[in-house]
């Protein structure tokens, strides 16, 4: 599906201004809103990015992975907290999004885990993050980097 790639590129171009703009697309496409991440201390620690991914199309889409020049090992992770209050984090695997549905990557749940940073994440900057779908489609969003203590896209 070339359409994802095209609209993704378009979205990336649109968001280059650093605005937290939806990576928007046509019908049967994927819209990403409220993308944000926290600044890192140096490059040794993994980063995390959050966003809401909407499938505005008529077909289900399946998110299978991530790519970014910022990190060598970007991966979709899920944090789970069990009945004893113990939190753990592991790869989330594929994420299917039904038509009209959205998936939220938010603190304490799903997150884009950015392992092996290639450069520090600096507050006020942005980085491109590409979502890879099982049909070969891609959507790239420009993710704003907020402060280390940020709690959400508005901080």
């Amino acid at each position, binding site marked *: 599906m070339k359409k994802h790639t095209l609209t993704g590129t378009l979205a990336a171009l649109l968001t280059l201004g650093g605005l937290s703009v939806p990576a928007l697309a046509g019908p049967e496409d994927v819209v990403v809103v409220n993308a944000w991440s*926290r600044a890192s*201390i140096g490059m*040794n*620690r*993994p*980063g*995390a990015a959050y966003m809401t991914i909407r499938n505005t199309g008529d077909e289900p889409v399946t998110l299978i992975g991530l790519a970014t020049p910022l990190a060598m*090992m970007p991966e979709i*992770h899920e*944090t789970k*907290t069990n009945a*004893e*209050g*113990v*939190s*753990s*984090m592991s790869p989330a695997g594929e994420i299917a999004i039904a038509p009209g549905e959205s998936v939220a990557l938010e*603190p*304490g749940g799903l*997150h884009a*885990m*950015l*392992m*092996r940073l290639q450069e520090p994440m600096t507050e006020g900057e942005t980085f491109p993050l590409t979502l890879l779908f099982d049909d070969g489609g891609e959507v790239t969003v420009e993710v704003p980097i907020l*402060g*280390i*203590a*940020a*709690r959400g896209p508005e901080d």
Partner: protein
Amino acid sequence: MRRRAILGYGAAGVGAVALMLFVGWWQVDGPGAPAPVGQRPVALTEMDFRLTDHEDNAVGPETLIGRPTMAFFGFTYCPDVCPTTLSDISGWLDDLGDEADEMNVVFITVDPERDTVETMAEYVGYFHPAIRGWTGPEEQIARVADGFRATYERVPTGSGDYTMNHTASVFLFAASGRFVTMIDYHEPREFAVPKIRRALEEEMEGAT
């Protein structure tokens, strides 16, 4: 006759033992068990550990007694839960304003291998200034976690890296050191702040 008496006595004894066992089960594992007792932290006054805070001061449970305490576990290489908890706590402290001034707020690492005193100092510097970062030798961290009935576990993430699973609840103690309650991860702020006030109020009661 005599033999029969003994038998009868024996039967009563067996019955008594069975009853005791049943009562014991009822209270310990059965429906009569006071639910979270095994998981509740002991009082700070019953804990014994030696750590170092992010300004290189020697600290222990006695450091916390005399003021209400909010404490939690984490590690600075934690990308999701820990910064979120630290931000939440910073927000609660902002909400409480002056009320929180007389409170200890302690972030205890479960990853002392990477979280040195310097690392903790840099990290806590990004959050509310009341938050202290404590680290120390692994066996001391284990003693703290034991007192809090908290758990942690090192989990490899591939290519030599690792992450830590750990108890993410925030623990609240009264100024006396008595455990008051905990704030679970994901608990809404409208529940968290009143819980902190409970720990703060208990101090007032103790003071009068």
